């Protein structure tokens, strides 16, 4: 009887070594192939001796034109290669908005307001249950207009919130990078649910007196994954415009969007969405490479809108009583899973080491041709990335992704802690998570980060960054005063 565990242990250890050996072999296949060839060639060379090699060279009877021509050809091909390579996009630095304590919303206050605005016991109980299981903490913040009973969602209040969050983030960024506003060449702003005229990008241009020939873009309605869409747009623009920089602002304005009705599918966003904003500075200038924090390696966008169910799963509409809200369908997680799979299929070959890709390919072929009962192979993304930033859309999203990608608790810690401290800040949550990882001192040079955003549409967008310099722990950011308290243990159900 006591012998039973030992075979298991030794077999699992053996399996681990087999796996390691396989990975080394496949990932360094080319090296393995080249080494014997190089050894053979050098052996031959050494045996033949230098005189024979010189005789061989002279026998080729190359004249000057041929040599020059070959040199030109080589130079030409090299030049074409270098010019057609995409310009590198560097993330110089970024800043996140830290909400003031005057905007804090404890659970009890949230529930009390829900009760006083809408005397519906059932919907209050429903929201209580959601809050208890939401994974949010007691320090998340709502804008000042939402502290009123009933909330005062005027245009003026919305603009005030926008100015507060965006200008704070930009001021922080300008301080960190020493950037002068007049030097900004491209401006991209994304904010899904608040789109005034003039746009938020115009608001920024007005406040900071940006140049008149700035290229500004304002993306609205694109959901929580719009942050990565903005980065994608900025990247494309930086390919076209040499020696430029781009300021990207990601935010979500909560003031006009508090749902005041009773329909359950629409109450969920009230419980989860909170104030936040991030300002990111991208550049393609060579001199910024020295001080940049990250380089953008890949950005993959997947849109499942062609499927009706995916299109309607996050839908803004009016309920039976005329209150506008965003309704989340029950199959949100299923659709998110499908979108993620789709995205992974594209990004996998770009980032995964050959060993994982081969296994995946073989399993796929095997399932199709040999026996479709084989379990699909889930590539081990932990081999491709050191850090993961999963959009803190809600506890369910993070749980689902942790399961799907087989991540450990430490990998999803940044996402869970961001959800706890800041709530779901929509498109800017990925930047709060990145800031958490840096504040914990885990970001080292050469580390790769995978940011995954989900949003209405239904979209799944991924960005892959590579860290260019180790970030010191004294990061001045939204986590500065509370990082020592984290990670916290978040119970499954908080008793209210």
């Amino acid at each position, binding site marked *: 009887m006591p012998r039973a565990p030992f075979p298991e242990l030794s077999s699992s250890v053996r399996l681990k070594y087999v796996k390691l050996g396989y990975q080394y072999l496949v990932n360094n296949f080319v090296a393995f192939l080249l080494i014997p060839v190089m050894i053979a060639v050098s052996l031959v060379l050494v045996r033949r001796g230098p005189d024979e090699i010189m005789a061989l060279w002279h026998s080729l009877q190359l004249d000057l034109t041929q040599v020059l021509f070959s040199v030109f050809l080589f130079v030409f091909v090299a030049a074409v290669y270098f010019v057609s390579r995409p310009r590198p996009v560097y993330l110089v630095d970024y800043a996140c908005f830290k909400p003031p*304590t*005057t905007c*804090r*919303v*404890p*659970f*009890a*206050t949230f*529930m*009390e*307001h829900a*009760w*006083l605005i809408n005397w519906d016991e059932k919907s209050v109980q429903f929201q209580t249950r959601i809050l208890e299981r939401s994974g949010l*903490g*007691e*320090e998340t913040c709502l804008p*000042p207009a939402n*502290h*009123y*009973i009933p909330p*005062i969602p005027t245009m003026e209040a919305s603009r005030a919130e926008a100015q507060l969050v965006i200008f704070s983030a930009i001021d922080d960024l300008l301080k960190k990078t020493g950037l002068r506003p007049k030097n900004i060449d491209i401006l991209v702003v994304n904010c899904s649910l608040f789109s005034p005229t003039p746009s938020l990008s115009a608001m920024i241009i007005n406040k900071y007196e940006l140049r008149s020939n700035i290229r500004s873009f304002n993306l609205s309605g694109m959901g929580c994954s719009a942050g990565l869409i903005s980065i994608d747009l900025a990247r494309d623009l930086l390919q076209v415009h040499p020696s430029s920089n781009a300021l990207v602002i990601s935010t979500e304005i909560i003031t006009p969007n508090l749902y005041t009705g009773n329909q359950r599918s629409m109450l969920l966003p009230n419980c989860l969405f909170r104030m936040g904003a991030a300002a990111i500075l991208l550049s393609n200038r060579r001199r910024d490479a020295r001080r940049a924090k990250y380089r953008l390696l890949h950005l993959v966008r997947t849109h499942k809108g062609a499927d009706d169910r995916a299109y309607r799963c996050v839908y803004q509409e009016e309920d039976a009583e005329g209150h506008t809200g965003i309704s989340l369908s029950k199959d949100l997680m299923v659709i998110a899973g499908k979108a993620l799979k789709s995205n992974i299929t594209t990004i996998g070959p770009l980032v995964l080491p050959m060993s994982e890709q081969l296994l995946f390919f073989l399993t796929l072929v095997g399932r199709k041709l040999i026996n479709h009962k084989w379990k699909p192979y889930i590539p081990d993304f932990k081999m491709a990335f050191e850090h993961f930033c999963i959009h803190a859309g809600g506890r369910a999203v993070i749980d689902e992704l942790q399961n799907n990608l087989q991540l450990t608790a430490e990998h999803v810690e940044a996402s869970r802690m961001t959800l706890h401290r800041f709530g779901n800040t929509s498109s800017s949550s990925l930047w709060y998570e990145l800031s958490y990882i840096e504040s914990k001192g885990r970001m080292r040079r050469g580390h790769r980060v995978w940011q995954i955003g989900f949003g209405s549409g239904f979209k799944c967008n991924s960005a892959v960054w590579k860290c260019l310099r180790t970030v010191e722990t004294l990061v001045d950011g939204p986590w500065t005063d509370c990082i020592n308290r984290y990670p916290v243990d978040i119970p499954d159900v908080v008793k209210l």
Partner: protein
Amino acid sequence: MGVEQEKTVIYDHRISTVVPATVTGNAVLHELTNMDLIMKLHYLRAVYYFNQSEITDGVTIADLKNPMFLWLNICYPMAGRIRRAESGRPLIKCNDCGLRIIEARCRRTLGEWLDVESSSSRWRLLVPDKVLGPDLQFSPMVYMQFTRFKCGGMAIGYSWAHVLGDPMSATNCINLWGELFSGNPPPKTLQLNNHQKKAENAATHVKVSPKPIPVKQVELIGDGWLAPNTRKMATNSFRITETKLKKIQPEQLKQVPTFVIISALIWKCLAKIRKSGECKMATICGYLTLPKCSKILNNTLKTSIVRLDSSAANFGLLELATLICKQEAEASKSVEELADIENGKSDFVLYGANLTFVDMEGINLYGLELKGQKPVQVDYSIDGVGDEGAVLVLQGPQRTNETSSNQERIVMVILPEDEIRQLCELLTSEFGIAQDLKINHKNSVTNM
């Protein structure tokens, strides 16, 4: 002026909530003492009036709210909500729910407002009149109302549930807010009252006491924490200047405190009005003056009963005053020992169980300073007073050219409506003192 018109004078109400700046913690409870629970059906209502000045002109609602976050960090039970323990005893769960803030505007100027007869109880429009319940878990214990007058003056209404603390605590708390607003750092030695465990509850026996007790047990109607009155209560306030008092105070009473003289005076008048001869018993109530930088949230009342053999109308002023003094010195037994609490299930009324005279001279109402500006007037009242009524003797506005001992007094009477008119007539005719409180705001401005 009709009541309907009165109501529209204050308009543009906006309600919001202010919470503590940092998380108080999970499951932090503030235990309520027996005294707290005895006082739970009473509510303190105060209105502080500030003249228009540079300070009030420049202040926004955000300026008023911002210091409150730190304030609530210090006095975090104020932001909690009433819950019941398993035994049924109420306590405060410090869940950071917050206090309620109401912003409003007034169509009149401050001068016009204060010029009106004080019997109209206009102050009620400037302070919320909410009580705890029926939803105890969603009832804030403290409300503040900021009303802007047409001229730029401001009124700060402050509603405080007595269960949280006595008027001394309430005033110290709001004065602390004033200090934080003015930019002063919070005092380091401030601490909350550490309540002893109420283990004595289990051993409390009903002490069969021959002495009368100043509380009356009541039956609540519904879930709201407010005792029903059989008669309609109203308020009135009048000013008694020192000179007026000297006129009525004979030589022999020079040693007697002003509060006692005023109490005796009013008791006599009321006894004349209440011809049924019931006016033989009164409760004298005072508050322990704890040093300022000390425990801030507690109910420490000292009460004594004065029992007469016949109606107070039969006694002379001197006699009555002396009797009151004697009784006060005699019996200051803590009320908690006299009342059986039964784990908070019983409901009591203290103010108004008998005719109650409350000594609030020591309460620093004019200590609420907004960057050095003091209020020009303070109205103070108690809600939930029983049918016998209560008389509050308050500090008057301080005049800079006089020392504190020569201060005038403001008397606020909370009595059945029909008695108030008669009382005022009697006081005017016999003693010449019950003029209506008309603020001479020109004087006030030069004194600020």
